[in-house]
């Protein structure tokens, strides 16, 4: 019996190894064929050009993913943190429960639904507001991503805020600070590592999102432009995979993008485990 359960446990490790191996094995060949510099620093992605040499530069995708995630975090963290403070400290219990349920529901909504509403509501709105020719822009993707990472930020931050010992707050109040001052000058800094964890979780979620943003971001391999169509690493894989011929360099290059994405996620994970958790000690 022991052996059976042990095997079950090992399967988890097996899956992770499988994923690593497959991504590395299928991603490396293309990087070799294209050349490390051309691949990472190349600004042009035209894998099917027939009148000129095809180019496989993924810099636009990498920069777009980074900028998009940064934008989503800039937009989502302040709102998320303020809401977390509200839920943890300011709100009366009934209101808090209501809003907490709302946050939980937001977390459960499938990403395609966000994409759909974004495509129908947000994209035309951006187009009209900024007088553009098309609203499918990085801005739309940033807004959608920000909404999607809100629940993670709120949940984890709230837990972290609640975990701060009451003595800290009592001491601050006794010294004459108002409640809000206490929350933001004492509680939040004390919950720093938990809040940082929530931000890292949000970053991980944002950089890996594909379906929600494929419908709102325009899908053109440009360098990141706030009010222009862009392609993220994730949407690059999703949009070309279904028609890249099997065995072609284009398809292998898509696997390489997957490998790059995986490396980014691993770096974020390591950052989370090593830097943030160490600070807790």
């Amino acid at each position, binding site marked *: 019996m022991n052996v059976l359960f042990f095997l079950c446990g090992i399967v988890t490790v097996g899956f992770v190894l499988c994923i690593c191996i497959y991504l590395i094995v299928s991603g490396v060949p293309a990087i070799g064929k294209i050349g490390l510099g051309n691949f990472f620093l190349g600004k042009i992605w035209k894998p099917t050009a027939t*009148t000129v040499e095809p180019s496989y530069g993924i810099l636009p995708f990498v920069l777009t993913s980074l900028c998009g995630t940064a934008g989503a975090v800039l937009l989502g963290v302040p709102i998320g943190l303020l809401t977390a403070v509200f839920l943890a400290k300011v709100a009366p219990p009934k209101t808090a429960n209501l809003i907490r349920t709302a946050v939980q529901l937001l977390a459960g909504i499938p990403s395609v639904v966000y994409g759909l509403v974004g495509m129908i509501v947000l*994209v035309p709105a951006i187009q009209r507001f900024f007088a553009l*020719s098309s609203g499918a822009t990085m801005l739309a993707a940033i807004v959608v991503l920000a909404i999607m990472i809100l629940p993670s930020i709120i949940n984890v931050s709230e837990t972290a805020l609640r975990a701060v010992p009451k003595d800290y707050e009592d001491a601050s109040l006794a010294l004459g600070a108002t409640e809000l001052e206490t929350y933001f000058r004492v509680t939040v800094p004390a919950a720093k590592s938990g809040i940082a964890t929530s931000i890292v979780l949000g970053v991980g979620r944002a950089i890996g999102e594909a379906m929600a943003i494929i419908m709102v971001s325009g899908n053109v391999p440009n360098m990141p432009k706030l009010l222009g169509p862009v392609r993220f690493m994730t949407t690059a894989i999703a949009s070309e995979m279904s028609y890249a011929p099997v065995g072609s360099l284009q398809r292998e290059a898509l696997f390489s993008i997957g490998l790059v994405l995986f490396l980014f996620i691993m770096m974020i994970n390591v950052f989370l485990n090593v830097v943030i958790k160490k600070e807790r000690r």
Partner: protein
Amino acid sequence: MKKIICLALALAMVLTLSLSACAKGLSGTVSTNGSTSMEKVVGILSEQFMEDNSDVTVTYDATGSGTGIEAVANGTCDIGLASRGLKDVETEKGLVATTVALDGIAIIVNAECPVEDLTVEQIADIFTGKVTSWEDFGGKGDIACIGREAGSGTRDGFESITGTKDTCVLAQELTSTGAVIAAVKSSPNAIGYASLSAVEGQEGIRVLTVNGVACTEETVLDGSYVVQRPFNLVTVEGKELSQAAKAFFDYMLSAEASELIVKAGAVPVAEVEEAAAEEATAEAK
């Protein structure tokens, strides 16, 4: 002993012969793969075929003409679907294209756009970015060009007829005909190209006339609407199709299928041949 064996063999032969005579119904799977523009045509034909032959399953993967051709070349599907002619590279691989219908590529703009007609040169200028504002045509705002991904047969057809290969500057690159229509519908400054069969019956968009000619089945048939391309069934030369696949292939080219093809918005090749025959007899007179 010998007598029993002979009797048994004879019985076996009779049984197999009678069974094969009973097996009139087709069965099996026919896999088709390729052009997204051919979705309605293949969809309606396969649905009827499956209703007539209940043991056959026809599958359709909408991956784009380029991928469909690859798939049939390396044997992962029975019949490839391409909304363009084959390139030299592809015919050299032993691929054969059989035209099942002609399809117009409709140039569409949003219903709010005041433009109604463009020449091929104007369309080329718009899509290559030489002209960027609707004001040149009596409208307002910047033009957003919506096009297809690189492997698309529709894109290939559009670019070869307008002479804009590899030089299109697109605001959005979408992966199917339906997606282009949806994008043009939701954006007042957009212009795009999509298969006529998918455009019919759609609201919120206007189909432009090209060089003064409207995009309809008739004008595609007589060639006056120039932006058109063939719907091709691609197979490997000399390779035997399975019984079910062969039957479906023949069905698609038959006269019974013509009505359904028209319903799907394309021009069946049977009609094209009819029209050519009529022209020949008219000339002969």
